[in-house]
Each structure stands twice: as structure tokens, then as C-alpha cells.
């Protein structure tokens, strides 16, 4: 209802103010564009002009009508720049809901500051932005920018809809290539949209209109899987003035290998001798590599300084050796050079780090935001993450697992996939012995973790004991008040296995019900994510990593406790995973013992939106069965 009101208001405005609103497109957009939208991209004209292989001029004019506070950030009235990206012009005008101009920003009114990513200590990236606080909704901003750069390897593609909750009325992309430098282009996710295309040797022109807004849904694939995009890349290009060419992964990788890597690294003799000595008794390359990796972890740390071409070329290995720090490029290169001293070949590999995102295998171009190291082996390659001081040898974890990456070899680029960790491998195996008393309990808990479960826990070792305890108190908050009397870890980095041992003592965690106690038989609950009920799911469901749990809980009771009933056996299995719970009563010498065996597997996979309801049901069943109770009669 509220949305429709805004729509009517907008339309009314469009009719009421034809005079001074010449710059704003008339409010005649389709009502569908209001669905899920916090802002509407009324019109965008992006013009990319390739002046030469190492000179590109970009002009952009963006008109956004913001419907509510959540839509403010779609205005995007800013330009990123640095030494090699010169802003030629910037201006903006702001219009109120009646279409009157209320604010005007000329180039000099834009504020400029340095723009560092959270992991960067220093860099030369800057942002020039319009500092504007909206005074009412809806409002419209017309922002214009023009800049010139000597890098033609980036910023040539077109992604008109790069965020959620923004709809497009009209967007136009003009790619001008007067010198007819060979180029490639490919469409992504444009089927079924209103698109007009004009394709020439000297350029492209695309028009797209009436694209409704996407909303973010839980466990949906990365937005690059569905947002409309036009990928465009030159076959001859320049990166901060360094020219290159390539239209396939092999050539592209070769160029990167030749121009962006260090080829005549000179390490101090002392370091080489040290490595020589350390690896003298190692029998295999794998063993040597492991010693060298440990050496890197012990002697370096991650510090990022991105200046000029240094944003693309690693700092020399000798400098890393001297300073003991570097960014991902520097540390990966350093490790590579150290391995080279022992004649172990390894390859600098480009990847998207973070949530799973692939290098687009079908469109060779400059991609990725991180590098890792690959050591080829006859059976299974070794993979190293060189920026962490604590991750095990040959273990990538969630940051770079299971995705397409580009290996840079002297022969050229090679697109490969990093190892995946399967559900069976991502195992948490828990054993707990719980001794109940009238008012309290004690429990001995051991947990073994491997795979991604290892990745999620191993960091706990290095935090303070007080925070470690806090972690368990929060994690198992459902046990009520308890104290951790003993806590120890053992981290087996060689086999990537982590062991947690705890002794806890707490108040009775069973629920009182008169003279009965309701005892939750699943002492520790697995962390199962919660999904909202959603009858209109649009996106597929993607579970990026499977996981499994195998648990045994044994309960011992004091004199006078009588077990009235135990839950029935549960066996649930479907395409999403499986759950098995069996509770049995064992009569031992010193009283009854309640034993609970539980196995839970959550599968990795991608399912159609229609399966959402079933998935939702599956998770609810797991939660509900994890809540099973035994009934105990107490003497009181």
C-alpha cells in the first residue's frame, strides 16, 4: 500500500512540474519497477572511449530517484581515483519530490579523501564524493563524472545493476573504439530482458530498460550468477601503462607471468643458507616445501601497502626478506622464490578470495583480488595460503576453496579449480559424558574437527583464555549457567585435525515440570542455520559447503531418578542431507545410562527455488528433533 502511494505521488509530480524538471526524465516508468525497490535508476548513460591502447576516457551520467532511506546508497555520486586515474569533471544536482532543484554540486564541491580497504595499511586510492544529506523522500540526483586513465584492462565491462533493491528504467552503454582495437564481449543473464544491441567493429551500443529490482535471499548464489552484465575486454590493453595482449587464459596468464612477476629475485646469501640447512634432511619436495612454508609463517606477517603499479606487482622477495612483511602478492612471491632455491617449482595463482566467487572461466580477462601458491605434484597439487601465520600447510579453508583460479606459469595461464572439502570431510565428532545431580551437572566433552570445521575453530587457540571461555558460554547458552573447569586444545596441523577438551560444571539444564524433569537428550546442538519462511522464493538455494556431525552423549543419573520415557528413534534422509538419532537406555551396574547416538549430514548443493519449502521443512525437522526430551521422575 505504501509503495503504491509513493508511485502515485511520483506520477503526480511528473505531471505537475514540467518546467524546471527538464533534467529529470518524466515520471512515466512502469509501476513494476517499484516492487522491492529502494531506488530507481531512471537513466544511466555510460560512455567508454578507447583513445588508444593505454588511454581510456569514461563518461557517465546517472540519474537516480531515491524512494526511501535504504535507497540512499544507490545514488553513488562518487569517483574512485588515484595517480593514474584523473578526474576531468564531476557535478551533481539534487531535485526534491516536486522536481525543484534544491542543491547543486560543482567539481570543487566534491570532497576528496583516501580510500583504504579494511586490510590496507596505506594506499594511494582515493575517492571524490558528493557529501549530501537528503532532507526528504523521494528525491532525485543527477550525477555526472568523467575521468581518464592509462589502464584499459579494467572498467570496460558494463554492470548496470550491481546491487539489490534497485530497479532500472533505462540504461545505456556506449563502447567507442575508433582505432578498432580487437576486443571481445559476452552477455551474461540478459535473456528475457528488454535489450537493444548495436554491434560494430569500432564499438558497441546497448540499451536495457525496465529491469525490476532483485532482493537478497538467504543462501542464494552470488549475485554475479544472475545480474545482467555485458563483459567487454580489449585484446590489446594496458595496466597502469604496462601494455599487454591476450584473448585467452593462456596468453593472458603469460602476459601476467612475464610482466607482473619477479624474475630475477636476489635473496641474501644468509637466507639461502638458512633454507639450505633447514631442508637438508628433508626427503621429499613435499617435506621441503612444508619446512619452507613454516619458515615463511614464522618470519613474516601480512601488511598491505598499495602504491601505483605496486598494487599489481609484488614487492621484491629480497625486500620481504628484509622487512618481514608484505601483502598477498609479496608473501606468495617470497614463498615461491624460497621454494625455487630448493629447485621446487611453484606457481603464483590468481583467485577471488572470500565468499565463493569464480574467475569467469568463459571470459578471459583481468580478474581476481587475491593470490595463493600452487606447487604441482604428481598426484595431488599442494596449495598454500601465504598471508596467514597459522593456517596449516596445504590447507586453503573457506577463503579460497573450491573455485576457478588462474595459475601463472612460464608457458601461460592455466585455469584450474582449487580443492573442495566435502561434507564427510567437514566433520565434527563429539563425545560427552554427562553426570546429572539433583541440581547440577558435570560434563566431559571432547570434540574432533576436520576440514571446514577445523577452519572455523583453529583460531580459538590464539585468543585469550577468558575469551575462549566466553565463546563456549555463548555457543552453548542453552545449557544455562555453567563454568568451564578445564579447557585444552590440541591442534594437529599435519593432519589438519583439531581437538577440543572441556570439563564443565553447571546448574541443571533440564526443564522443571512439577516432579518431573524434561531432559534434552541432544546435549550439544549442531549449529543449523535458520531460514525464513518464504512462499515467494525467487532464487535457487545454494549450500556452498556440506558438513557432518557424529555425536555420542552419555547421561549418568543420581540415585532416585527414574526414567519415565525416552524419545523414539529418528531417521530422516533426503537430497538435502540426513539425520539419525537413537536414544537407548542401558542398565549398568550403578544405575541406568542414557546413550544418545546422533548423525547429521548437511549436503552441499544447488536446488531450484521450488525446493525451498522442502528445505525449510527439513531444517525445521532437524531443529525440532534436536529438541527431543527424555522425561525423568525425580524423588521430589
Amino acid at each position, binding site marked *: 500500500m505504501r509503495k503504491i502511494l509513493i508511485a502515485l505521488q511520483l506520477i503526480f509530480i511528473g505531471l505537475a512540474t514540467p518546467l524546471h524538471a527538464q533534467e529529470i526524465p518524466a515520471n512515466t516508468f512502469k509501476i513494476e519497477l517499484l516492487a522491492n525497490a529502494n531506488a530507481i535508476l531512471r537513466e544511466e548513460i555510460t560512455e567508454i572511449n578507447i583513445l588508444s591502447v593505454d588511454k581510456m576516457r569514461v563518461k557517465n551520467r546517472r540519474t537516480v530517484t531515491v524512494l526511501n532511506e535504504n535507497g540512499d546508497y544507490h545514488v553513488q555520486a562518487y569517483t574512485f581515483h588515484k595517480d593514474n586515474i584523473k578526474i576531468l569533471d564531476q557535478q551533481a544536482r539534487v531535485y526534491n519530490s516536486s522536481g525543484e532543484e534544491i*542543491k547543486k554540486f560543482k567539481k570543487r564541491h566534491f570532497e576528496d579523501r583516501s580510500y583504504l580497504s579494511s586490510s590496507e595499511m596505506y594506499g594511494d586510492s582515493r575517492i571524490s564524493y558528493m557529501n549530501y544529506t537528503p532532507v526528504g523522500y523521494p528525491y532525485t540526483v543527477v550525477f555526472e563524472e568523467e575521468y581518464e586513465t592509462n589502464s584499459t584492462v579494467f572498467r570496460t565491462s558494463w554492470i548496470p545493476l550491481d546491487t539489490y533493491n534497485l530497479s532500472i528504467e533505462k540504461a545505456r552503454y556506449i563502447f567507442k573504439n575508433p582505432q578498432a582495437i580487437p576486443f571481445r564481449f559476452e552477455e551474461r543473464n540478459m535473456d528475457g530482458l528488454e535489450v537493444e544491441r548495436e554491434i560494430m567493429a569500432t564499438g558497441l551500443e546497448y540499451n536495457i530498460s525496465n529491469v525490476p529490482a532483485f532482493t537478497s535471499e538467504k543462501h542464494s548464489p552470488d549475485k554475479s550468477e544472475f545480474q545482467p552484465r555485458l563483459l567487454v575486454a580489449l585484446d590489446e590493453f594496458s595496466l597502469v601503462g604496462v601494455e599487454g595482449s591476450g584473448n585467452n587464459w593462456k596468453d593472458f596468464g603469460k602476459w601476467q607471468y612475464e610482466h607482473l612477476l619477479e624474475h630475477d629475485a636476489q635473496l641474501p646469501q644468509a637466507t639461502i643458507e638458512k633454507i639450505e640447512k633447514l631442508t637438508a634432511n628433508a626427503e621429499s619436495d613435499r617435506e621441503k616445501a612444508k619446512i619452507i612454508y613454516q619458515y615463511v609463517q614464522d618470519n613474516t606477517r601480512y601488511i598491505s601497502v598499495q602504491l601505483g603499479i605496486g598494487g599489481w606487482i609484488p614487492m621484491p622477495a629480497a625486500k620481504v626478506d628484509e*622487512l618481514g*612483511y608484505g601483502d598477498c602478492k609479496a608473501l606468495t612471491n617470497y614463498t615461491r622464490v624460497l621454494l625455487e632455491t630448493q629447485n621446487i617449482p611453484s606457481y603464483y595463482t590468481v583467485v577471488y578470495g572470500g565468499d565463493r566467487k569464480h574467475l569467469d572461466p568463459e571470459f578471459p580477462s583481468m580478474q581476481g583480488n587475491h593470490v595463493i601458491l600452487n606447487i604441482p605434484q604428481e598426484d595431488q597439487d599442494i596449495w598454500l595460503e601465504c598471508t596467514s601465520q597459522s593456517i596449516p600447510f596445504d590447507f586453503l579453508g573457506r577463503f579460497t576453496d573450491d573455485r576457478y583460479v588462474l595459475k601463472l606459469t612460464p608457458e601461460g595461464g592455466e585455469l584450474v579449480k582449487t580443492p573442495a572439502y566435502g561434507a564427510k570431510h567437514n566433520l565434527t565428532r563429539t563425545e560427552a559424558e554427562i553426570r546429572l545431580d539433583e541440581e547440577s551437572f558435570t560434563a566431559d566433552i571432547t570434540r574432533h574437527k576436520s576440514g571446514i570445521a577445523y577452519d572455523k575453530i583453529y583460531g580459538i587457540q590464539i585468543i585469550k583464555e*577468558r575469551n575462549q571461555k566466553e565463546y563456549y558460554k555463548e555457543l552453548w547458552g542453552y545449557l544455562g549457567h555453567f563454568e568451564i573447569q578445564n579447557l585444552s586444545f590440541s591442534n594437529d596441523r599435519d593432519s589438519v585435525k583439531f581437538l577440543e577438551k572441556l570439563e564443565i560444571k553447571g546448574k541443571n539444564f533440564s526443564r522443571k515440570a*512439577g516432579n518431573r524433569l524434561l531432559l534434552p537428550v541432544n546435549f550439544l546442538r549442531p549449529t543449523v542455520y535458520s531460514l525464513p519462511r518464504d512462499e515467494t522464493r525467487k532464487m535457487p538455494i545454494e549450500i556452498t559447503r556440506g558438513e557432518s556431525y557424529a555425536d555420542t552423549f552419555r547421561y549418568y543419573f543420581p540415585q532416585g531418578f527414574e526414567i519415565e520415557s525416552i*524419545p523414539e528413534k529418528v531417521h530422516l534422509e533426503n537430497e538435502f542431507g540426513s539425520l539419525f538419532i537413537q536414544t537407548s537406555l542401558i542398565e549398568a551396574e550403578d544405575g541406568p545410562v542414557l546413550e544418545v547416538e546422533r548423525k547429521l549430514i548437511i549436503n552441499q548443493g544447488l536446488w531450484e527455488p521450488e525446493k525451498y519449502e522442502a528445505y525449510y521443512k527439513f531444517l525445521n525437522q532437524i*531443529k525440532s528433533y534436536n529438541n527431543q526430551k527424555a522425561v525423568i521422575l525425580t524423588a521430589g
Partner: protein
Amino acid sequence: MKNSILLILILLLSLPINAQNYKFGKVSEEEVAQTEHPEHKEANAAVLYRKQEVYYELHKQTGLTLITQIHERIKIYNKEGFDWANKEIKVHKNSSTGEKVTSVKAYTYNLVDGKLREEKLDKRDIFEEETSRYRKTTKFTMPAVTESSVIEIEYTIRSPFITSLDAVPLQDVIPIDRLEVSLKIPEFFGFKIHYNPRSPLIIPIEQSQGSFTYNYTQSKRANLGMGETKFERKKVEYLLNEYSLEQDAIPPLKNENYIDYLKNYAAYIRLELQYTKYPNSPIENYSQSWEGVAKSIFNDSDLKKEIGITNYYKDDLDVLLNGKKQEEKVDLIYNYVRDNIKWNDYVGFRAEVGTRKAYKEGLGNTGDINLMLISMLRYAGFKTNPVLVSTRSHGIPLYPTREGFNYVVVGLELPNGVVLMDATDQNAGVGELPKRARNWQGRIIREDGSSGWLPLLPQIKSVNTNRLDLQLKDDFSIHGRVLNSYYGLHAKTFRDKHGKTNTDNYVEMLEKDKGNIVISNVEIHNREDKGENVRQTYEFDLKNGIEVINSNIYIKPLIFGGMTENPFKENERNYPVIFDFPSVEKNTVNLMIPDGYEISSIPENFDTMLGEGAGQFIFKTTVAGKFLRVETIMDLNNIVYTSADYEMLKEFFAQMVEKQSEAIVLTKV
């Protein structure tokens, strides 16, 4: 006797070990070899030595410059301590001048093959960043840092802001093994030293007097316009007040959850400027009373002037108020300002934009908006005055100073008290302040320039009542109706949280963490009427909400109201616990007992007090025919509970959680 000899022996023996050399560059092998802090084994790093020297330089051309020299020796114990190898030195600036970081010298020390090796920080690896209009940051990271490195850093800050001395830190989040501070203040300035009253750590300061000599050359012309120039060497002696402190083994500042601003609890000293007395000038007094501070702000900061301007809004306001009764006008004016002039997120008691311009553009800082509101209320005939405030992040000032205030709200004086208002908060009504302004006390300035204190913490308890009517269906699902009512600051909190959520997301938010539930018919009354009570009703169907085992039904009556976990999990606490406002929360659950069942057991009634009247929790059940009613009341009277109250508070919440988890048992007849 024997014992004391032994003691002396031990003391003698231990002396040479403790006698460290703190001169720059004299890092010892022992320091680098140390693997953990002897007392604070959990420390990731420690300050082995910190020396801060503050003094003034006098030059004929440039006049006085305030110099701060820092020398730090830091030990890193493990990888978590590596952050201490990254240094950021933040300094002040304004549009015309600024502080400068100079003479940065830094080394990393490691033991390599049993030998001490030093690594110098290269000047090229020092970066300077314009952080904001008022801040500049010098950044660097130390080379060759390993798990046992000692780093040593020395730098100087030269400041043209000669009367404003930064607070001198006496504590850090890592241990400080030795701290030396020296302040040398020439007779031109009188400073008073204040400790942070919220920190128990007091380090005695030694005071002494010295002198310094100023040598300069004066030129004299013998004859007017003719002849040679004579130079005369001159010498003046000035007094120097010296303050110094030394302390060993300063414990680290502990971090805890639910602390808003940790820095408010650290030990430091702050210097209050009391007077300046430059040569050949009269003494100028800066020391003030709060009365004086308020008066000077009122007169010098254009508060009076801005409140006095009425012509820009006059016509609009006349229209707005035309024909309205006097008692309606306060709300009308307040809502008008709040809804039409947007806050630009800048605090301040001055009208930075200017009220007239702010009104025209619909945008202003706290000063613009609240001074405008005062002006309008006065125009409409209400006795209204500005109230100076220090926000929560600004802390509580240690002494009367203009810098002690950074905010202004509106005080409407009525016969039965002062009603506070702040039109910068989109969700506040008349009488409600945003959390940022609910700090310490406010200073109200009356029209004649006199002033007085006002409490800013909410005095009235805000109430929240929740009613659940539950009905068990044949398939053991629960159908229920919910009525939530939010009064006072509970209503404001509701608007702060949910004011902007759209309906679809709202239902999703309501259903979150409530299990297998479907919520429908959500209605919210007064969601937009700021200052009014909020009422929310909805219906739900919940599966698996109860336990059915054998022929018994087990129900936790507050199926999703109430508290399931104690928010206080830590065993001890060093800082106070601060709630937002005094509050009462009442839950009532009515359960219809299904046909064919009868009550087998119900939780016993329960009543507990928190301390002596600081709070109360009541749990009560009543049975009337087919209906079972469960009522709970949680009453918290105070906003601040000290760390001494912590154990008590934790136990109070534990009892509450336990009682609310007890189940009702119904048995088949």
C-alpha cells in the same frame, strides 16, 4: 632476624636484574629473550618503557611551540601482538595550521642465532595521511617483526596549539612496565591537573620549580635612519613549573562486553588551563565555574542571537498555529521542526549552519535544530531555554570548561518541572531524548544568563506489557494471539528498531527464532505517532511448540516471550552495567486447557528482589475454570549498576531465566 637478612639478600640479588637501561637503543638481550610477561601471562605485548616529555620552545620569530616527545619500547610476545608493531600517530590540524610529527626514529630488535640484531625503519616506509579536516595521521609498520621482537620508537610532535594539552595516558590495554612523564610548563601558563575519576589508578605527581633562560639578540639603531646598527645580546630568566611522575608495573586496562566507551575508564591525566600570563601582559583568567562556562557559551557562541531571530519562520508558524489551542502548540511546533529540518549528523551547541539557512535548506546540526525549536516555542509564548549537554561518547567533563559540553537540547519550563526535547531524533516525542544525550547532567541557561543543573537520565519508568492468548489444537499445534504494548522509551526503542522495516520483512523478523511458526494479521497502532504508545497485535500458528510425551503435554508458558539465556555470563566485572532506562516488563499468558486434559502440575509462584529495591521479579499462576493464567513482572529501577552489584544482578537474571523455563504439565483425563 634471620628472615630479614634473607630478605635483604634477595633484594640485593634482584637489583641488578631490574636495573634496566632505558636509553634509546639500549635494548637488552634479556628483553628480547623474554617469552611471556612475568605477571600478565595473557598479554600479547607489553610496553616495557614509555617516556613522555612535554615542554615549550621559545623562538623569536615563531614564538612558543608546544613540544611532545615520546619514547616507547614495546615487547611483542606472540602473533596476536603483531598489531603493536603498526603505529598510527594522530595529530590535530585546522585550515590554517597544524601539528607536525617529526624526528621519527624506530628500530626492531631480534635475537638472531643468539645475537642481538637491530633493523631500522626506513624513512620511505613512513606514510602521512590526511584523515579528515581536523586530523592527520602518520603511519608506519616495523620491519622484521617476529614473536619475540622488541621495538623501540621515538618521535616528536610540534604543536602551534600552545594552550591545549592532550590528555596524558597512564594506562593501556597491555601492561606498562615502566612509565615516566615529565611536563615543563613555563610561567606563562597555569594548568591544573586532573585524574580520571572513573579509574582507580592514581599515580602521584611530583612538583618542582626550575627556570629557563631565553637568549635573544636585539638590534638598535644608533641614530634615526643613519649610522650603523648595533646588536645587543639579551637574556631573560623565566620560571618553569615541572611536574613529573614515574610508575612501574601498571596493569592493563581490561576490556569487557556491554561497555560503551572503554577509554572512559582508563587512567590518564588531563590539564586544565587556568590562566595565561605572557610577559608584559596582564593575567588572563581561564579558570571557570560551570555558571561562568554556561554564561560565556550563551553570550559568545551566538546562542542568544540565534534564538532571537524569528522573521524567517514567523509567517509559516503563524499559519501552523492559527486557531490552535495553546496546549496543542508544543507538539505542533516540535513535530514541525523534527519533521522538516533534518539532522546532518553533526553535534554541537552552536548553530553551525545558521538557523535561518538550516530552516530554508531543511538541514542543520544539533545547534541549528534545537535553537530554532527554542526560538519558535518562545515565539509561541512558552518559557523555553537551551540545555547544554555532553554526549555519551564525549564522557563526563572533569572540570568546568567549554569543551565539557558538545550538544544542546531544549528545556520547556512548566510549573511542575522541565520537559526536555531534542528535534534531531526522528523517533523522539516531546519529553524524550535520544540515547546519545542521556548522559550525566544538563546545564539549563535562562534568559537572564543564569544557569542551573538538570538531570538528563530518564526519571520515569517505561513500561512494556505483553499478552499471549494460547489455544491448543488437536494436532498439538498452538494457535495464539499476541498483544504487545510499548510505553515511553519502550515505544521509542520500538520505533528506532522497526520504524523503517517494510511489512514483508517485518513478518520475517517477527518469525525469526520462533521455530516452525506462521504469523499473520500483524497490526501496529501508532507506529508513526512519535511520543505515543505503540500497540502491536498479531496471530500465530506454531508447530512443535510443545512437548507431547506419553499422554502428557508439557508447555513452557512464555513460549517466546521472556528470557531464555542469562545475558550476564562473565564471572566477574570491572565496570558498571548501564541500561538504557528504568523499565518494567509485564507478561501475561492465558492458556485454554484443551478438552480431555487436566492440569497435572504448574510452576510454583515466585517473587524475588534485586538488592534493596533496585528491582523485582514476580512469577504468578492462577487457574480459573478452563483457563490458566501466568503472569510475570520484571522491574528494573536503576539505570546504572556498579561492578559491586554485578554478582547480584547476574543471580537475579539467572533466577528469572530458570523460572521462565519451567513447564506446565497437562495430563489426559
